[in-house]
């Protein structure tokens, strides 16, 4: 089941139009990823922290969400300083820790935290349904939007089916081990899941035809045009563009 712990809220960020939030998140994260100086990336990090604070997100849930990111970063901190060429800061036998390696790891850490925080503050604060709606209104191809919405709708159903199959196997004494029998069983489960998903897709398509589906995507959400929306978007875009130009000229 896809949880949307941040989607419900009353902050001004929650009330903003999905389109605006998607565009703002895109602009900010693109600019942050192009940045290559520590003094500038700190500003982006500050902006992302401000956005997260403004969205009034639960700090514990946010930390939980950042956990996989930190796992990934720890891997980078483990590999890059040891393998990068450059000025050696410290060495022990053949193991050498280089300065550029550490700098690069720090940069990646700053950037990824910034981008994840921006997306949490702006994109995770709407439901997947609103996200689909926003992407549709940004003229993304209907097929992609449908793909997203259908995944969202049916991933829980498929998970349920998988659990049901696995439970049935366990009730008949199946214990997963590292042997051929276990692999075969899991292969059968996966195959069955594909077969069922395909059959379900056919039934869903039939149900859609029954209700007059003709390839068009209708959406119900109405977001009233709001002056604040466009001000927010302009502010974010100006800030990202400003920082980008500033970096190009002065550094």
């Amino acid at each position: 089941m896809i949880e949307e712990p941040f989607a419900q809220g009353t902050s001004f960020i929650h009330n903003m139009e999905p389109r605006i939030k998607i565009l703002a998140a895109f602009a900010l994260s693109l600019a942050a990823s192009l940045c290559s100086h520590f003094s500038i990336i700190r500003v982006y990090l500050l902006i992302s922290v401000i956005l997260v604070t403004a969205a009034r997100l639960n700090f514990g849930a946010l930390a939980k969400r950042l956990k996989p990111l930190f796992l990934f970063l720890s891997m980078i901190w483990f590999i890059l300083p040891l393998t990068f060429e450059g000025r050696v800061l410290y060495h022990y036998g053949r193991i050498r820790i280089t300065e550029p390696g550490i700098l690069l790891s720090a940069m990646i850490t700053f950037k990824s935290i910034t981008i994840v925080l921006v997306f949490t503050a702006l994109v995770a604060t709407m439901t997947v349904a609103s996200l689909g709606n926003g992407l549709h209104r940004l003229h993304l191809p209907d097929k992609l939007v449908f793909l997203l919405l259908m995944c969202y709708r049916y991933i829980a159903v498929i998970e349920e089916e998988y659990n049901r199959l696995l439970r049935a196997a366990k009730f008949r004494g199946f214990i997963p081990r590292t042997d051929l029998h276990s692999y075969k069983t899991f292969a059968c489960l996966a195959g069955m899941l594909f077969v069922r998903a395909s059959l379900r897709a056919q039934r869903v398509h039939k149900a859609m035809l029954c209700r007059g589906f003709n390839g068009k995507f209708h959406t119900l959400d109405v977001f009233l045009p709001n002056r604040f929306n466009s001000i927010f978007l302009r502010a974010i875009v100006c800030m990202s563009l400003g920082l980008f130009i500033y970096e190009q000229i002065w550094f």
Partner: protein
Amino acid sequence: MAENTGIIRLEDISYSYPGTDSKVLDHLNLEIFQGDRIGMIAPNGTGKTTLLHTIMGLCKPDGGTITIFGNALKNEKDFLPVRSKIGLLFQDSDDQLFCPTVMEDVAFGPLNLGFSHGQAVDMAKKTLESLGMSAFEQSITHRLSGGQKRLVALAAVLAMNPRVLLLDEPTAGLDNTVKERLIHILNQLDISYLVISHEFDFVSAVTDKIYSMENGRVLTNAGINIHHHDHVRKHSTLISTEYSLPGFFLEVQQHKKKALKK
């Protein structure tokens, strides 16, 4: 359209699954008239679902003619206008509810019929209200319970204002409270419908006549007389394997007890 012909008429329909020889529907005839409330009780695998899908044009028959509202329907294009006037409730509600929220799902049909945004929302709201489901308008569909899903799926079908309803095992997997609610709802509708079900009590509570299916054909004179408990014995001889389960006998016994009390 003449007065004495049915709104849905299937003549000599045959259907077999692609790649197989055995006929699921074998020269089947069926006629549904305006105001009919028909129940269909038959074992699994006798082609009940296929029959409903044939009426909707989702299964293309190998032979025979389908006449709906006086028009003979042949290809996909002929079926398009018919689908908005016949509502099919699927066996599994998860197949039918594919939009993220309940409101979007119920409004999906009206929007496809060309109603404006406001009208579609209005129709969806009214339909949900009539089924007592107003509180779920903004709910996320996949988080609803089984019973709620079934009622929302029914709302989605009813929102298109169909003239005929086809219900494919509407009570499967539901508890008694939801079943009773369904019985209440169906009895208040003033449109024709055909209900497929395995539950005799449910079918007899919502329909006027009961058909069965055997060897790919519809049996209309199955000798089943509702509110008379003799039918149960006849019925269980007619339908052999499926109902020789203890559960069914229990149901039959309960039904008999109820009838005796009366």
